[in-house]
């Protein structure tokens, strides 16, 4: 990620500044537009300012050069004339003449002096750095570069170059300038002198500084204004978009009547229109489905009432007949018995069907309290003791010493345990049934293990199907409605828990219920392995979750942690 690299590149203090910016860049379209406008605008403006300043400084320097050259040339010829005139007059010391000349030249430069006059000479073969004979201000002869001095010495005419003017005292600061020079001849052949005019760019630099300052200041103000404009303009676009987002969120949260306000006929308005159309369509669909679901639930509820009242009457009548059967002839007596027994099944089936339809309608609700699974299991085992004894099955409970509590709906958990227990006893073939209870920090579990015929490969996925029968050829035993495990799975899922099956032919089967100890928490593992411990080492096994898609648990010796199971399993 680019942001990752950015973060690495920046030192820690900068991160504190940059991170919110990076964040704003990612999150806010408006910030992004404003920031990019600012960056690009600054770039463009800098380029323009640079071009402008270059042009101005070039112009200033050129005009300064032109005026300087013209002034210097005029001065040179005047000086030569003066010298020639002096030569024809009475002799006087050349030095003196030259010094006077310089002083008179300097007087013309005004105050403060616009230029410096420098006289070097008499010219010899060597060009020395301290060859200044006279000057209007204390300057070093380096102010006229060696090349210029050479040119002036060797060739007649006026020469010029850009230079750095080097003042030898602090009266003026050093700076760039133009040096113009020419050779002047003294009258008494005392030697030639080189006369230089040094024009510093002080004035031009000051002007350029002022211009640059103005450009920078106005540029900064301009950038701020541009950023503000960008902010305002994007706000026009972003505000409706944000509004749409908020409305969409509210729609998603179930407030289906929310709509966007549509004003005008622009793109934003059209977006709003389409959005509202979509919301309207969704609302219609959902209302329709809700209505259907409501009707469905209502129907189920009505059927429940309508069926239950006559069933109660029939039930009571059958009971009276059943009580009186000793006085009937054998056939009638047996009929009364069958009537009674089948009514039990009919009732159980009706109850299970209503329960399933309640799950299907999404009307099932949890009634959460703190439940001790150990106690609950013991109670259910006690309740089925008689049935177990009748089937010749011994039921053992393996529970921790302390409580294994979980936040759950006790009626539903009881129903699941009752169901698993009844199934195990029915398929135990008179062998032992174990009920294991365990809990860790996050999950509590109950596993019911039988040593009966077990499940064939693939069947662990099927046992949770509605009305599924293990062996179609096997006679149906009374009792089961064929919906028990399907309801148990729904109950487990309602708790955010798992109900899983393991089985192997002739080794029996194990059903494990795992629920989170805190209601609504996610399950990540179960405190009980799905495959019983006595079978996991060195034996082939067949195991699946409720869906039959998950690979079997690994050998506990290799994986000491509680097994990890899929969090999702749906009834087919």
């Amino acid at each position: 990620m680019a942001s990752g690299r950015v973060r690495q590149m920046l030192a820690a203090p900068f991160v504190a500044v940059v991170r919110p910016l990076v964040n704003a860049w990612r999150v806010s379209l408006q910030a992004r537009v404003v920031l990019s406008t600012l960056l690009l605008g600054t770039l463009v403006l800098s380029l323009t300012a640079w071009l402008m300043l270059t042009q101005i400084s070039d112009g200033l320097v050129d005009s300064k050069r032109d005026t300087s050259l013209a002034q210097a040339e005029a001065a040179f010829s005047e000086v030569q004339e003066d010298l020639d005139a002096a030569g024809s007059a009475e002799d006087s010391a050349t030095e003196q003449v030259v010094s006077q000349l310089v002083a008179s030249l300097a007087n013309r430069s005004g105050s403060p002096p616009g230029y410096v006059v420098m006289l070097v000479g008499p010219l010899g073969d060597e060009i020395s750095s301290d060859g200044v004979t006279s000057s209007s201000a204390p300057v070093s002869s380096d102010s006229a570069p060696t090349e210029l001095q050479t040119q002036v010495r060797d060739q007649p005419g006026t020469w010029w170059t850009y230079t750095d003017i080097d003042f030898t005292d602090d009266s003026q600061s050093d700076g760039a300038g133009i040096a113009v020079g020419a050779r002047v001849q003294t009258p008494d052949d005392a030697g030639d002198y080189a006369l230089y005019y040094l024009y510093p760019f002080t004035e031009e630099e000051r002007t350029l500084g002022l211009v640059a300052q103005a450009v920078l200041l106005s540029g900064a103000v301009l950038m701020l204004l541009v950023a503000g404009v960008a902010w305002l303009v994007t706000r026009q676009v972003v505000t409706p978009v944000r509004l749409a987002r908020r409305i969409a969120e509210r729609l998603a949260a179930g407030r289906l009547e929310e709509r966007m306000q549509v004003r005008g006929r622009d793109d934003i308005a059209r977006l709003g229109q389409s959005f509202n159309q979509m919301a309207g369509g969704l609302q219609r669909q959902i209302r329709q489905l809700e209505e259907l679901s409501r009707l469905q639930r209502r129907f189920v509820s009505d059927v429940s009432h309508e069926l239950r009242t006559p069933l109660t009457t029939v039930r009571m009548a059958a009971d009276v007949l059943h009580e009186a059967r000793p006085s009937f002839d054998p056939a009638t007596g047996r009929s009364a018995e069958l009537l009674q027994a089948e009514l039990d099944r009919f009732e159980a089936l009706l109850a299970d069907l209503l329960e399933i339809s309640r799950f299907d309608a999404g009307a099932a609700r949890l009634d959460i309290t703190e439940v001790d699974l150990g106690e609950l299991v013991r109670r259910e085992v006690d309740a089925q003791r008689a049935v177990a004894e009748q089937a010749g099955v011994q039921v053992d409970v393996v529970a921790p010493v302390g409580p294994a509590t979980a936040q759950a709906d006790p009626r539903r958990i009881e129903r699941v345990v009752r169901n698993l227990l009844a199934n195990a006893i029915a398929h135990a073939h008179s062998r032992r049934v174990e009920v294991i209870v365990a809990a860790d920090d996050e999950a509590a579990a109950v596993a019911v293990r039988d040593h009966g015929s077990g499940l064939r490969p693939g069947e662990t996925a099927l046992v949770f199907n509605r009305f599924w029968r293990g062996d179609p050829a096997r006679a149906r035993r009374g009792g089961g409605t064929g919906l028990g495990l399907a309801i148990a799975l729904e109950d487990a899922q309602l708790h955010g828990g798992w109900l899983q099956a393991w089985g192997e032919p002739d080794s029996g089967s194990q059903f494990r219920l795992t629920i989170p100890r805190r209601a609504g928490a996610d399950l990540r593992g179960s405190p009980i392995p799905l495959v019983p411990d006595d079978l996991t080492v060195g034996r082939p096994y067949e195991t699946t979750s409720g869906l039959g898609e998950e690979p079997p648990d690994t050998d506990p010796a290799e994986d000491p942690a509680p097994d990890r199971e899929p969090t999702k399993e749906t009834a087919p």
Partner: protein
Amino acid sequence: MHRGRVLVVDDDASLAEMLTIVLRQEGFDPVMCMSGDEALAAFREHRPDIVLLDVMLPGMDGVDVCKALRAESGVPIVMLTARSDTVDVVVGLESGADDYMVKPFKPKELVARIRARLRRFDQPAPEQITVRDLVIDVAGHSVRRDSTAITLTPLEFDLLLCLARKPWQVFTREVLLEQVWGYRHAADTRLVNVHVQRLRSKIEHDPEHPQIVVTVRGVGYKAGTD
């Protein structure tokens, strides 16, 4: 032996008749009433010891009848309902019913419940129990705060008495069901919740912050001590 007069309020003629047959067999003295509107008159006329009340009735429905009955009597009321959804059950109980039975029920279970409701403690010895500022007169079946009498139904009285007799003990909902309702097998603990709410609304100064019937989180209830 007279085992109690039962008023059966149900609009389903067959069920009502079947109920009377079964109840008569069990030695009760059943009286039928086919609609909610007549229920109150029938109650005043026959003075039953217990009322079996169907929730869905033409005219005045079961919940309204229940409220009307409660307004003038503490007679035990058992609701007969075709729905076992929490909302329906709780609405029924909150309207004043002592117990409810979901259709289809087994006749034996119904009879057991009726007997449990009619079971009264044998003449208790004169005894006064005090819970905070409440005084319970056990023999006189009355509860007073200062000199004001508080009207409780027999079931609410039994519930309060059960808790007050052993203020040091926390009662689980299951134990209360057994001791107050007389059910040996765990029935619906919602019964306890709703009745505790109703009892609190009558005896607590502030039912939102109960001090007499105190909830012990994750366990059950106990009588508040000073």
